[in-house]
């Protein structure tokens, strides 16, 4: 029975020899190997930063964990309460449930939903996580304020915002719920120093609260302030 319960030190996320190759049928079936045998694990409260030059496959690894990309080999074990779920093999609705309850993701760009205000975009993510609407709205306002998004923009749909403003809505959306696992794909890329510092604070808070974080960060200073460990993805380069 004891084995069924997660001990505090048990990893929140384990990647076990995952691999990915794209087959481009429109280019005559060209095969584009991305990564092979990627293995690492992330403990609660730990921030693992993926290293390596662009094109090494860092974003692809995050997308495989989140389920946007299929995984050709290996397993992605996500702790879901007392259960370990292999996200690489799970049914779509199981992945949707993991995303709702366990795994948050800040993508490089906000996928804009027409007509929905910035505040509602953020609050909806908290409601999907299971927070009551009042609390979701309060948390959304708090995050947008901490990320210095001018209050006059909160009631507007983000479609017309600048890149940096959209990205801050996107970050607020990722942090408004308190998922056990948080995936960050260059969240600070288009931000100024003040907002980068705000994101670093948010990451530190989430680590203290016990979230396991996997991130990609362009800026050396952000990386050094948040990383507990750097996993160099070039180690897992797939042979062409």
């Amino acid at each position: 029975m004891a084995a069924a319960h997660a001990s505090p030190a048990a990893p929140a996320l384990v990647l076990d020899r995952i691999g990915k190759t794209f087959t481009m049928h429109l280019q005559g079936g060209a095969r584009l190997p991305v990564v092979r045998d990627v293995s690492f694990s992330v403990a609660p409260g730990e921030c693992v930063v993926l290293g390596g030059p662009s094109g090494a496959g860092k974003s692809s690894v995050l997308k495989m964990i989140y389920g946007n990309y299929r995984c050709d080999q290996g397993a992605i074990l996500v702790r879901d309460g007392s259960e370990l779920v292999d996200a690489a093999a799970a049914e779509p609705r199981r992945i949707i449930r993991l995303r709702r309850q366990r795994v948050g993701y800040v993508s490089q760009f906000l996928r804009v939903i027409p007509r929905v205000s910035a505040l509602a975009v953020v609050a909806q993510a908290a409601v999907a996580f299971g927070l009551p609407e009042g609390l979701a709205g309060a948390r959304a306002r708090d995050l947008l304020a901490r990320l210095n998004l001018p209050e006059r923009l909160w009631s507007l749909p983000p479609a017309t915002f600048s890149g940096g403003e959209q990205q801050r809505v996107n970050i607020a959306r990722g942090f408004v719920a308190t998922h056990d696992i948080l995936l960050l794909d260059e969240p600070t890329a288009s931000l100024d120093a003040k907002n980068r510092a705000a994101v670093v604070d948010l990451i530190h808070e989430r680590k203290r609260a016990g979230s396991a974080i996997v991130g990609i960060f362009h800026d050396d200073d952000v990386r050094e302030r948040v990383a507990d460990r750097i996993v160099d993805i070039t180690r897992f380069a797939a042979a062409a």
Partner: protein
Amino acid sequence: MSAARELPAAEMPELPLLSVDGLSKFYGARLGCIDVGFDLYPGEVLAIVGESGSGKSTLLSLLSGRLAPSAGRIRYRMRDGELRNVLGLTEAERRLLMRTDWGFVHQDPAQGLRMAVSAGANVGERLMAVGQRHYGDIRATATDWLGRVEIDSDRIDDAPRAFSGGMRQRLQIARNLVTHPRLVFMDEPTGGLDVSVQARLLDLLRGLVDDLGLSVVIVTHDLAVARLISHRLMVMRQGRVIEAGLTDQVLDDPREPYTQLLVSSVLQV
């Protein structure tokens, strides 16, 4: 840390609402669709995409009982929990199901509405079909539903003939949802609308589907619509499902040559 936020079991029931296998339709020697199978769970939105002639509309007609299949099985979980063979229902049972527990949103609202009677009557008619008789209650419910689909209550006595395309489509949605169906079929619901009107309708649909926990099977040729509204995607070509899975996975990492072609053919703005 997690006990308080476990979803109640009812939010993710493990039993499918609709279970389909081996569904096929031949028009003489011509193929409508062949060997389609899937399970749809409560609260799930399944998009069926493909180009004209791919069989997606045939499939929707089969699923919704508007067309008889050549082979295959469709089972539906009734409100009493029993999984029943839809094709084996009596005509009366099937009609009751379609009037109460199922909805069907047509691309052309004129097919799903009665164009010459008032908006209020269009919504109220479905209520009367399930046995409501009190005029005041029916009118109050109709007014409430017009509000939910963003139609001003002072239009309740106007016939949909006098409405714009977007308003007609929203009225058709209200007419379908007023009986609280659990499963709604949609055939290109945003198809004939201007882009700005489409966005409003999609946003409205997303909200209603979430709030009501509806299961939806939606046919669309528009991948952006599928991405915005569906959890799962089936790609059809020449009557067959050639690829299926989590919507963003199929769109971000398409595996089949035809799906790669479809995804790469979408214009970026």
